[in-house]
């Protein structure tokens, strides 16, 4: 297990380097002069003289590859430049906003699991009965629901009309409920259907019949024998969705004024705050790559074939 994890971590290095090159290049290939953008944002008149000065100060006069190495060296010291808007280091700003986002994502993930696993199992057990039909309709609704609209509806009913939850910002536990529900609802019903079809697929396998014929209770048969195999596609889809969920916080954060990285990213985009944009892209990539790593490790743990095959290749 340890060599497998170690190898996966080594594999990450080229990916991260590649991402850093791409984000660095893209920012510099964007039409428009970053020096002028900087001046405009600092409200200094963009004369040629001032632009030349800023170019020198920001190191923009050097060749591109030198700029990249300087940037990379700084990056190793966790220096990703200062925000054009606030003048503070983007690293500190982004890390400050990262925690609330992770908190929200985690809440949404937990909520999704709590709802979708039991509903998925029940939909499979009561296939084509009322419960299954309702969950099928809800899956359609969930897939077509714009999450920002859902957020507004939740605010309107649960916050304004019923006064149960606060309508925005971050604070106590109750603040996280509405944004987490907004984020998870879209995924919940998709996963429900996925788990249902996974269970149904394995329901008629010979080993399940054998378990039944041994006189095991239906609950044990499904819980112990079916679920383990049926959960594989579910885990795959789930792991892919975590990245999308993390990006999906952008909308929930905007609707509920949640002070997270998504809101920071969007305001950086609107303000053309290049160092902040660059770091946000990089940060999201790193998080996503790390999630993939964790999921792979879980896979290897669940399915010995994966980690053994990895060892043979060595």
């Amino acid at each position: 297990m340890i060599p497998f994890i170690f190898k996966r971590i080594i594999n990450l290095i080229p990916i991260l380097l590649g991402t850093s090159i791409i984000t660095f290049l893209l920012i510099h290939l964007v039409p428009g002069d970053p020096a002028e953008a900087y001046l405009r944002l600092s409200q200094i008149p963009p004369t040629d003289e001032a632009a030349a000065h800023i170019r020198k100060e920001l190191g923009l006069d050097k060749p591109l590859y030198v700029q990249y190495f300087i940037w990379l060296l700084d990056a190793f010291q966790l220096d990703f430049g200062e925000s054009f808007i606030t003048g503070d280091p983007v690293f500190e700003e982004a890390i400050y906003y990262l925690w609330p986002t992770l908190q929200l994502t985690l809440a949404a993930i937990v909520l999704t699991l709590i709802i979708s696993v039991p509903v998925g199992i029940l939909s499979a057990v009561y296939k084509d009965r009322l419960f299954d039909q309702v969950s099928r309709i809800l899956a359609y609704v969930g897939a077509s629901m714009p999450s920002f609209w859902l957020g507004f509806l939740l605010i309107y009913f649960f916050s304004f009309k019923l006064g149960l939850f606060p309508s925005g910002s971050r604070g106590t536990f109750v603040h996280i409920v509405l944004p987490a529900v907004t984020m998870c609802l879209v995924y919940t019903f998709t996963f429900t259907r996925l788990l249902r079809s996974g269970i149904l697929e394995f329901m008629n396998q010979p080993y399940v019949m054998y378990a039944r014929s041994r006189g095991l209770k239906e609950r044990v048969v499904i819980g112990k024998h079916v679920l383990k195999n049926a959960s594989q596609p579910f885990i795959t889809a789930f792991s892919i969705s975590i990245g999308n969920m993390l990006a999906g916080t952008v909308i929930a954060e905007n609707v509920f004024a949640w002070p997270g990285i998504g809101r920071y990213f969007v305001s950086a985009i609107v303000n053309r705050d290049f160092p902040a944009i660059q770091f946000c892209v990089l940060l999201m990539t790193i998080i996503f790559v790390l999630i993939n790593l964790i999921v792979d490790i879980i896979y290897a743990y669940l399915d010995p074939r994966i980690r053994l095959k990895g060892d043979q290749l060595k």
Partner: protein
Amino acid sequence: MIKEIMNNKLLVFSGAIIVLMAFVAVFAPYLAPHDPNLTNLAVRLQGPSKDFLLGTDHQGRDILSRLIYGARVSIGSSVLVVAVTMVISIVIGTISGYKGGRIDYFFMRFCDIIMAFPGLVLILAFVGIMGPGLFNLILSIILIQWVTYARIIRGMVLSYKEQNFVTAAKMLGSSNVKIITRHLLPGIIPQIIVLATLDIGTVLLHIAGFSFLGLGIQPPTAEWGAMLNDSRQFLRSHPSLMIYPGMMIFIVVMAFNLFGDKLRDIFDRK
């Protein structure tokens, strides 16, 4: 039997909604009772009346007219995105699958890289780098979306390529272009249309979502996502401002999803 009719009923129903919406989008200038961008602060935030059937927004603009024109932008740009995506991916997917070799390897590794990241993150990154705006948003979505289809089409081409009718055409001395256009594409395109229909809903959600964030369509252009963003301050006092555009997005996306799903059922049975 009952299920069969039920399926077709849904197909007809969702199809009818799509046709209706397309009609509204195309004939927006004739259907809209007012200019969607005409502000008149004297009549701001009014309820439904004879003059303004659904009331007015915070700048006194007619909501119904904005919804009608919004259909144009929302549906129009989604269809555009999906259409361009399809053209790109059909060309690349077919070439990649038919030619094989180095071209295939190059395209497929490129697809691998793009597909390794969650689509939303990539769209956000591209829009972030290129700047907000409808054009950049559309471009970003296309850049990301074509990859998936190119792969699917490549797979289809690979499976058709080995079949007897293609071999026969080759033996008869048909040119590659003729084999692709006459023998391969007719089998592939119907399946791709189904996929495309299913995708319009997703793309529409993306466009509306990004416009809601202020990263897509810029004001004052009427678009459903942007209208929802405008309604934010009046959520408590005038919830109808938020209900109508959200409802429109929901209905249209639902219609496309249902239609695509039922269409796929029919194709799968064959």
